[in-house]
């Protein structure tokens, strides 16, 4: 029993760290930039597909993983250009990218999936260095923890720099940021690029962890990221940059834990999407109902 609990927890921990990258990406666009970016479903697969194909073609797994960040950045950049330069609504820009990337991902992989069976992945490299057996959960957690920690420290620093501050303010009050002499279009491009770079990185790590990239691996990723951010906010009520970032990772952990437990309890994998949807509804509705009971003022629902 304890064994099962331990393995469930450690597996969720690993997943929480990896999907925490997606959650941070969604947090950056949705909360920081107030830009509901649906590119995520496509850029996640894009990262996984790119890395898988590069590894199969003999590229070292580390540069292959870094390449996933690069392609993710580019995808986010295109979404940002569609919105800022061609004035497409953010939602539409993201949806178009998501759809367009599906075809691109198929082209990259030359089919619906690429197997990494018997290929050397970043996990194998780390296992080698640490002298651990391949496929051990300790290796997975080490890799995920290292990546998440680096991302956390860089972002926590970046978002407090002069550039980072203006980026955060863009989602809060774009008019003010412009009137202080900052090109807000550039900030939106930068934010979308960073967010999708992180999502691409998550896709690359997951593809190597599960041993394949699949054209459908990104489906529902935006909802998962959204669920993680919302659960993190509801549970931890974070204030301050560092805690907001940690809450996204924490939210992803809770979400994955929930899903893993649900599966262990015998729920059909097909039901998980419904559970996710219900979970998000609950996380969003509870604060509303609580306010209503206390007769507090409630802001109108957002309609983007």
């Amino acid at each position: 029993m304890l064994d099962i609990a331990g393995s469930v927890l450690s597996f969720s921990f690993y997943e929480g760290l990896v999907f925490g990258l997606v959650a941070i990406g969604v947090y950056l666009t949705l909360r920081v930039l107030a830009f509901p970016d649906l590119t995520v479903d496509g850029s996640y697969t894009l990262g996984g597909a790119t890395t898988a194909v590069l590894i199969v073609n003999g590229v070292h797994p580390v540069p292959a993983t870094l390449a996933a960040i690069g392609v993710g950045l580019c995808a986010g950049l295109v979404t940002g250009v569609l919105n800022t330069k061609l004035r497409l609504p953010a939602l539409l820009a993201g949806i178009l990218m998501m759809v367009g990337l599906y075809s691109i991902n198929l082209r990259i992989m030359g089919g619906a999936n690429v197997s990494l069976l018997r290929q050397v992945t970043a996990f194998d490299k780390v296992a080698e260095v640490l002298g651990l057996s391949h496929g051990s959960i300790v290796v997975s957690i080490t890799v995920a923890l290292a990546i998440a920690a680096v991302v956390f420290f860089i972002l926590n620093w970046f978002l407090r720099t002069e550039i980072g501050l203006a980026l955060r303010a863009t989602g809060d009050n774009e008019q003010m940021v412009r009137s202080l002499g900052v090109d807000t279009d550039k900030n939106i491009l930068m934010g979308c690029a960073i967010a999708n770079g992180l999502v691409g990185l998550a896709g690359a790590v997951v593809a190597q962890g599960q041993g394949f990239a699949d054209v459908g691996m990104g489906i529902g990723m935006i909802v998962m990221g959204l669920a993680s951010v919302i659960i993190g906010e509801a549970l931890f009520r974070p204030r301050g940059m560092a805690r907001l970032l940690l809450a996204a990772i924490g939210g992803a952990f809770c979400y994955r834990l929930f899903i893993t437990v649900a599966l262990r309890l015998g729920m059909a994998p097909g039901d998980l999407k419904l559970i996710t949807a219900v979970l998000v509804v609950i996380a969003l509705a509870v604060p509303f109902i609580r306010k209503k009971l206390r007769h507090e003022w409630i802001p109108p629902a957002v309609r983007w």
Partner: protein
Amino acid sequence: MSQNKSLLQLRGITKIFSKGTIDEVTALDNIKLDVNTEDYITIIGSNGAGKTTLLNVIGGVFPPERGGKVVISGSDIAGLSEYKHAAYVGRVYQDPHIGTAATMTIEENLAMAVLRGQPRRLRPATNKQRRELFRSALAPLSLGLEDRLNAQVGTLSSGQRQAVALVMATISKPALLLLDEHTANLDPRTAQLVLDLTEVIVQREKMTTIMVTHNMELALRYGNRLIMMHEGKIVVDLNQKQRAGLTIDDLIAAFEQASGRRFIEDNILLRR
């Protein structure tokens, strides 16, 4: 008018909205205006006179029609994007929410404002030295905000937010300060506080200032030059000498004479 040299020259500024449609409006009609250094101009006029449109053109929110020139400190910035105008122009809006970022702290808001017109870098936005600067800029407000640098701006009252917005517009000492009815949304006491504060900052920094207001009394009390606009034109332009001793009734008479209309409209009258 002061003997100072010219800071801002507007030439041939016209702005037409909904051009070519049945709703076409000429908001600004061939405006020519010279603003000298250390001028403190108050602009009055009824709704639709073009006051805010004029500030928007100076602030770069939208460009004037072709041929219009906005020359500030010697360079023509007409047509440049708004964020490039910001290097020269600080602005406080009527709505305190526009001038500040609610989800960020007072310190973070000021840290963004202090870099107006400068390149932003990958280095921490706040440091000990800047914090000292923020405290000394906030202390004269006597609102105790200098001890609440880490408070989120969204938790402040409208008056406090407007005071912060005023400090943000001036902390980097831009060449020109635009005040767009910046006390119209505040209760009388808070409005007075923000006006006093404006006076202190403008005098101390010798800022060239343009204040738009609906309130004739304010327009006479503050500044050293008074401009009245009507239907997109400047119809009255009084220097300090001409303005001295004028009453609101004199202003109304001047308006009627210049515009050739009886002064019966809108809320200027109500706000006497």
